[in-house]
C-alpha cells in the first residue's frame, strides 16, 4: 500500500504545485525596499519600516514548531499580538528534513514556510535554502553560534535530560540504574535515532556516560541494546500523550520538552545525570523563497529580542543570547532560577562527528534493539 499511496500523493503535490505556481505571484515589496534580499533592518530603513512592511504582508508561515516545544506556543502568540500578524503554523510534528522537503514542494506558493527551525545536520546541508539576515543585536550572539553572513544562527539549546514518572518509578541517578527491574518496559526515546535529532542526542548522552567519546556512539548503542535485552526499553516515541497516558514512564528528551511535560503531567520530574552534559543548539534561518519575506525578517528580529529569548527560558531552553542578557540585566531571573544554570562539562558533537555517528547508527541501531 505504501508505495502506491505515497506516489499518488507525490503526483498530486507535483500537479498542484505546477498549477498553483502559475497563478500565485508573491510580490511582497513594501515601498521601494525588496524585502527578499534585505540582510538587516537598516535595509528597510529602520525597525518601524520593517514592521510596516511585515504588516502589509499580514501573515507569517512557520513550520515544525509544536506549541509545547521550547515554549513556541507562547512565542507565536506574542508575535501575533504584538505585531498584529497572523502566524500560520504548519505540520508542528515533522522532522527537520521534512521542513526542507516542504520548502521544495511548496516553492512559489503562499503557503511555503517563511522561516526554519532546524537541527544542525540538516541546517548545514541546506544552505541553498536560506537567505542571509543579521538581526539588530547580531553582536550579542557568540561567534561560534552563527554563520558569518547570517545564513543560519543558533537560537536555543537544551541539555539531554531524563524525565520520569515519580509516582511509579524511582529517580534514576546513573545510566546503569535504568537496567534495574523497576524500569521494566519503561524507558523510551523521542524518536528513532536514525531519524530524529532528539533520540540521536540521547544515544550521545548514553555514550559519554558509558565511558565513550563523541567520536563513536557504539557504547551508547550497546547500552540501549542491553536495556532492550533487560526488557526495559519500550520502542514507543515519547510524546506529551504517551507521558500523560503512563505508557512511557522514563523518557530521554531535551530538558525543555521534559520540563514542558512536568508542567502539565502530575508527578513528572526531570533529572540530568551527574557527569557530562550533552547539548545541541537548534538553528534559525530565513527561507530564500519566503512568501512573506518582511514578516520572516521581523520574526527573526523578534526571536532574538530579550522578550522572546526570555520566553525560551520559561519553556526550559537556554537562548543563545543568554550571556548578553545576563550582562545587560534583561534576563528573566525568576525563570532562569527555576530552570537552573547550564553547568558542568558541556559536550556537543561537531558536524563531522554527527555525520560519522549517523552512519554507525544506520548500521547498528536496528540490530541493537531488534
Amino acid at each position, binding site marked *: *500500500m505504501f508505495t502506491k*499511496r505515497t506516489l499518488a500523493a507525490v503526483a498530486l503535490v507535483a500537479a498542484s504545485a505546477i498549477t498553483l505556481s502559475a497563478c500565485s505571484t508573491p510580490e511582497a515589496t513594501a515601498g521601494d525596499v525588496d524585502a527578499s534580499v534585505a540582510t538587516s533592518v537598516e535595509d528597510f530603513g529602520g525597525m518601524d519600516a520593517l514592521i510596516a512592511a511585515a504588516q502589509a504582508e499580514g501573515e507569517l508561515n512557520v513550520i515544525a514548531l509544536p506549541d509545547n516545544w521550547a515554549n513556541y506556543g507562547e512565542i507565536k502568540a506574542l508575535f501575533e499580538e504584538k505585531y498584529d500578524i497572523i502566524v500560520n503554523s504548519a505540520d508542528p510534528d515533522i522532522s527537520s528534513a521534512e521542513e526542507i522537503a516542504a520548502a521544495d514542494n511548496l516553492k512559489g506558493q503562499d503557503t511555503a514556510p517563511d522561516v526554519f527551525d532546524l537541527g544542525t545536520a540538516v541546517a548545514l546541508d541546506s544552505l541553498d535554502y536560506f537567505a542571509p539576515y543579521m538581526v539588530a543585536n547580531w553582536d550579542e550572539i557568540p561567534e561560534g553560534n552563527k554563520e558569518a553572513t547570517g545564513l543560519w544562527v543558533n537560537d536555543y539549546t537544551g541539555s539531554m535530560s531524563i524525565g520520569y514518572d515519580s509516582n511509579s518509578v524511582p529517580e534514576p541517578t546513573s545510566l546503569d540504574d535504568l537496567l534495574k527491574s523497576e524500569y521494566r518496559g519503561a524507558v523510551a526515546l523521542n524518536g528513532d535515532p536514525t531519524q530524529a535529532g532528539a533520540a540521536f542526542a540521547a544515544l550521545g548522552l548514553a555514550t559519554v556516560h558509558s565511558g565513550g567519546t563523541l567520536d563513536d556512539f557504539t557504547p551508547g548503542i550497546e547500552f540501549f541494546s542491553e536495556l532492550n535485552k533487560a526488557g526495559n526499553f519500550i520502542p514507543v516515541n515519547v510524546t506529551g500523550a504517551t507521558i500523560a497516558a503512563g505508557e512511557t514512564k522514563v523518557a530521554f528528551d531535551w530538558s525543555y520538552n521534559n520540563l514542558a511535560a512536568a508542567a502539565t503531567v502530575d508527578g513528572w520530574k526531570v533529572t540530568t545525570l551527574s557527569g557530562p552534559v550533552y547539548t545541541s543548539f537548534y538553528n534559525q534561518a530565513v527561507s530564500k523563497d519566503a512568501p512573506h519575506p518582511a514578516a520572516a525578517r521581523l520574526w527573526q528580529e523578534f526571536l532574538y529580542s530579550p522578550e522572546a529569548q526570555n520566553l525560551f527560558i520559561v519553556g526550559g531552553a537556554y537562548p543563545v543570547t543568554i550571556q548578553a542578557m545576563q550582562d545587560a540585566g534583561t534576563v528573566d531571573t525568576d525563570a532562569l532560577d527555576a530552570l537552573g544554570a547550564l553547568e558542568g562539562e558541556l559536550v556537543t558533537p561537531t558536524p563531522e562527528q554527527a555525520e560519522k555517528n549517523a552512519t554507525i547508527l544506520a548500521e547498528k541501531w536496528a540490530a541493537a534493539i*531488534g
Partner: protein
Amino acid sequence: MSLATAPAPEQDGVEHSARHHPRVAPAKPSNRRRRLAYAGLTPFAAYVLIFLALPTILAVVTGFFSDDGTLTFDNVTGLFTPTILTTFGGSFWLSGVTAVIGAVVGALICYAMLGTKVGGLLRTIIESAASVLAQFGGVMLAFAFIATIGVQGLVTVILRDTFGIDIFADGVWLYQVPGLILPYVYFQVPLMVITFLPALTALRPQWAEASATLGGTRFAYWRHIAAPVLAPAFLGSLLLLFANAFSSFATAAALISQGSQIVPLQIRSALVSETVLGRENMAGALALGMIVVMVVVMWAYSVLQSRTSRWQQ
C-alpha cells in the same frame, strides 16, 4: 491489493473464453464497436497513468540518481548491504507468516460457512463483516490494538491487575516486528474469506454425488477431487495475502517507531531522517526492490488464477 487483484480477472476472462471455449465464444464485434469499447476505458487508463504509472516511474527513476542529480547505481547496489537485506528478510518473514496464518484460518472459516445457506442471514453477515474488516487497517487498527493490548491497554491492565499475568514480561513486543503479526492477521483472515469463498462455493455438489455413487468416501472426495480443484485458488489467495502484507505501511508505521525492520519503514526513514542525510534517493531504490517482489508475486497470482478459472466456468 487493487494492484494485485485488478488485472488478473480481466486478462483471464478474455484469454480463456478464446483459448478453451472457441466454439462458444461470442461473434467478433465489429472494429467500430471495439474501438468504442476501448474509448470507454480512457478515463480509467488516464487515471492509472497519472496516479499509478507516472508516480511509480518517477519514484523508481529517483533511485538511479544521486543527491546532486547525476546518474548513479549506488542506491541500487545499496539494496545489497546487510542492513537492507535484513530489512527485506524481515518483510518476507512477516508477510509469509501472516499470509500462511491468514490463509489457513480464513480457509477453515470458509469451509465452516459452506454449511450456511447461500444468501441466508448468517452468511450475508459474515460476508459483509469480512469485507469491512479486510479494509480495517492502518492507524485505526494500530490504535485499536494499542488501546486494548498496549502497555496501558484495557486487556493488558485487566490481565495484569486481576490475574497477575504480564503479557509484556519479556519486553514490549507489540511495538516490534512480532507485534505486527496480530494486527496483520486481523485484516488477512477476512481478506482470505472474501477471496477464497467463491472458489469453495464453486465446488459442484454433483462432483461429491458422483464420487459417492462410485463408492468414494468423503475423505477420498476431498483428497482426490476437492483439494486439487481448490489448490490453485488457495495458493493464489495466499499470494494475494502475501502481497497485501508486504505492501502494508500505515499499521506498521503507527506501531513501530524504532529500527525500521521492514521495507516500507526503511522508505520512511530514508525520506524523513534528520540525522542520516542524503538518502532520499535510496527510497526510490527501495521502491524498485518492492516493485520487483510485487511483480513476481502478481505474475504467479495470475498464472494460478488462470488455472482456477477453468473450474469456475
